[in-house]
């Protein structure tokens, strides 16, 4: 079965640079979520999109922005990168039937900021 695809899988950036993370949800899933997992931490919710509209927002820095496109893929744009942005970024997708309770996670993008 098709799973959530994230690219790139690994990314190394310098401080103050910009990064773009991409997420391709499971086919027919209409909701995308982004989570950030720092070293030794639990995943923290950043932002979500339903039918290309932002549906919820968590602890996402103002330096970050995201959107969902007409083909339902999503991109997380991160500017003015800081050392503390080094983390594993997960994308998850779900289908909004009865709330789409199960979120399926992608393999994550490991971002290292030097």
């Amino acid at each position, binding site marked *: 079965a098709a799973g959530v695809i994230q690219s790139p899988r690994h990314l190394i950036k310098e401080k103050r640079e910009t990064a773009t993370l991409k997420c391709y949800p499971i086919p027919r899933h209409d909701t995308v979520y982004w989570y950030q997992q720092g070293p030794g931490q639990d*995943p923290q919710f950043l932002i979500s999109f339903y039918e290309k509209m932002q549906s*919820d927002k968590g602890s996402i820095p103002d330096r970050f922005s995201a959107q969902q496109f007409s083909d339902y893929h999503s991109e997380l744009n991160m500017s003015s990168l800081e050392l503390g942005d080094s983390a594993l970024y997960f994308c998850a997708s779900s289908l909004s039937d009865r709330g789409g*309770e199960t979120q399926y996670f992608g393999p994550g993008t490991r971002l290292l900021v030097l």
Partner: protein
Amino acid sequence: AQTVTQSQPEMSVQEAETVTLSCTYDTSESDYYLFWYKQPPSRQMILVIRQEAYKQQNATENRFSVNFQKAAKSFSLKISDSQLGDAAMYFCAYRSAYGRQRNRDDKIIFGKGTRLHILP
């Protein structure tokens, strides 16, 4: 706000034995979902088991089962016949069932995790 608490940062179990991971949560909602996710060294987040709060019957998936106590807000995971491949970080997680339908959030809230070691 909802919270999820895992009081056991690390646990160890002998291979083929049974182990129980604890989780408690706090919420004022009556309808929600609870999950256990497994994160092996690859750091992939894998869904282990799911429980709907409105169901009294405990969920079971092969060697994995839960003990869901709604009144006590407890949701423990039992792993039977532990295998070396079960070694991982296990996250207990909560999600509101209302989500977008009632203009509420549908994000997952995770506990801090329990690292499970399997001893050969």
